[in-house]
């Protein structure tokens, strides 16, 4: 377990994280190929952890280790090009077509154009957007769900071993969301990336994560498989589960 960890946070402290969050000794070990969903209230430090992993932030104390190397030792740009990143508001560049957006990282890596074109077609097909139709479109011509798929395609384009997703489906309507959840599980079954997904929605975390971690008071309160977490008695975890019981979402799993 210790050696096969793709991403590891050891005693990470950070006094000024994203959105005023504070981390007080986060320990987290994520295995290669698993999907970890991090849940917590706003300002709990979920996004901060993602930014620590790709070097946008640096820990005050403790270690963030990716592929066996502390992020402080990584060349930040090299590190980021090995990590796919999907943002809440997608962040597609409005002055680039879908194909150009998806090809950003391969271009940074200096792939030759033919290889980039082939790869762009491949990942667009993977996220369910045929290149023949969508490659030359502009971001403003797409629906919210299509933009999100392009965001995922862009993150996967350079075939990075790690994928970070920050509230990727937060802004979508429930039907589109459920559809993209299914798509995500299909894609993940196919590509087997190490995925860290951040959400404030426990339902989403349960739907996508092979393990779900709850962030509270600047640390991981509990991290476990959805089935085990559902039975948690931890007072920091229970309130987050309540809406699921009310909606009856966990009834099937409980039974």
């Amino acid at each position, binding site marked *: 377990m210790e050696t096969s960890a793709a991403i590891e946070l050891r005693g990470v402290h950070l006094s000024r994280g994203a959105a005023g969050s504070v981390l007080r000794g986060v320990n987290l070990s994520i295995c290669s190929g698993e999907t970890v969903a991090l849940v917590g209230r706003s300002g709990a430090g979920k996004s901060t952890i993602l930014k620590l992993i*790709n070097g*946008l932030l640096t820990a005050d104390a403790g270690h963030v280790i990716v592929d066996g190397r502390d992020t402080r030792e990584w060349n930040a*740009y*090299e*590190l*980021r*090009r090995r990590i796919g*990143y999907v*943002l809440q*508001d*997608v*962040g*597609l*560049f*409005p*002055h*680039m*077509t879908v194909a*150009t957006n998806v090809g*950003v*990282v391969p271009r*940074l890596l200096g792939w030759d154009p033919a290889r980039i074109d082939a790869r762009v077609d491949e990942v667009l097909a993977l996220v369910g957007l045929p290149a023949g139709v969508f490659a030359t479109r*502009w*971001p*403003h011509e797409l629906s919210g769900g299509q933009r999100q798929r392009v965001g995922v395609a*862009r993150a996967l384009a350079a075939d990075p071993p790690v994928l970070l997703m920050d509230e990727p489906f937060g802004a979508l309507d429930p039907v589109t969301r459920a559809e993209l959840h299914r798509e995500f599980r299909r894609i993940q079954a196919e590509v087997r990336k190490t995925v860290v997904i951040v959400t404030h929605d426990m339902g989403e975390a349960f739907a996508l994560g092979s393990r779900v971690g709850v962030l509270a008071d600047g640390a991981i309160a509990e991290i476990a498989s959805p089935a085990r977490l559902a039975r948690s008695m931890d007072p920091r975890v229970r309130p987050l589960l309540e809406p699921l019981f009310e909606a009856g979402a966990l009834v099937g799993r409980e039974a």
Partner: protein
Amino acid sequence: MTLVQFLAGHRAEFFGLLMQHIVLVGASTAVAVLIGVPTGILAARRPRVGAPIVWLANVVQTIPSLAMFGFLLPLPLVGGLGARVAILVLILYALLPIVRTTAAGLRGLDPALIEAGTALGLTPRQLLWQVELPLALPAIVAGIRVAAVIGVGTATIAAAVGAGGLGEYIFRGLSMVDPTVILAGAVPAAVLALTADGLLLWIERAFGRRGNRRVPRAVPAAVAITSILLIVVAATTASRRTGPVIRIGSKNFTEQIVLGEIIAQAIERNAHVTVERRLNLGGTFICDKAIRAGDIDVYVEYTGTADTAIFKEQVDTDPARVFARVREHYADAGLTLLAPLGFENTFAILVRGDDARRLGLKTIDDARSAARSWQAGFGYEFLQRADGYPGLANRYGLRFGSPPRAMDLSLIYRALARRQVDLIAGDATSGLISAYDLVMLEDNRRYFPPYDAAAVARSATLLRYPEVRLALEGLSGRISMGDMRQMNRAVDAGHDDPAAVARAFLARLERGRQSKG
């Protein structure tokens, strides 16, 4: 004369001035972009450095342009007459809008896009070129638009420092009180401003169209080409400065411009120096100041004008005495008055050719008896001045049948030709004298002061370049009153290019010398 006629008649000159104008604005805007955009980027990245820069550009913008030209003229290196000062001033004015919109365009970008770019692994430089600049491009182009339009307007004032451009027509028109000539500068300048604005707006829209906002590869190339051009321009001006340069000036009317061209071309033919033309500078005082300051080396002055207007002497009608005194005054100032060119530009008492031939009139004295039945026509100034009509009537005992009619100078020649009047006071070198078959009566009692045209040159220049002195002396006594009238007529009535007229005259002079030799 309508504006269209004027422009058609001055085609060559007009396009020359238009090109100068475009080069002034184009060069200064290009330099302002090269300086302004990076400054704007700096201002957006480091507000603490940027704020004072924007503040400074703001202050510069508040200085009236004429004051700015006046302020920079005496400075060494950038100062002096000409395009150098003009371009510097135009750059200073163009900077603010460009710096400001660049900074504002970059600061106004969605931070999520910057974060996305960073998270994808773009370096700050890649982020700037691939994301930030393309997205800020419409704002930057909008700033360049404002700068170019301001530039076209401000560049008209550049004519005041001898940088040329369409402003030359405006200043010439103002000094001639001719609205057509003013419009010949103002209307094309306005059209140019609108064209530049429209063109840049089109570019702005082309970039602004959603999606198509990648910085084209052509942009760095265009920047590089512009820089190279500027270096070439700088190099050529620098190399010019190292070689010997003779600057020829002139006042701002036809005869002066033709004479300036004749002198410039005579020097070009006979001396191995570069000649720079600073023609159409303005009035007597501007030319006098310029030659004393060394901004020009040669221009043509009239002895009577120098005597009374520059050296403030009493009116004197003895040509030799006036010439000797003026020459002495000039010598004290380090200037040399060369021997007269051969004609004088004085007041001329004119009658119709047929009257002169029928009555055998040669001198003003001859006209005294005929005058009793004649109607005279004079300009307002000539009628009023003591050294005008009152003195003339006194000296010659002239009496007309009815009081002289006051007329505008521009109409007076035609009025004589059409027999509305029978005798006028005109300009001795006017091209209209031969055009209307008029005859100038000799001032046999020497009433008018002498206005012999003669080149004034900086003595130091003549010492250093003896071949320039030779070229100037070669013109002494060679330009007759008839030559000058004909050349004025060719430019004013025939709308010929002054440079071409001068060239033809020098060629004739050359042929005359060869046939004699």
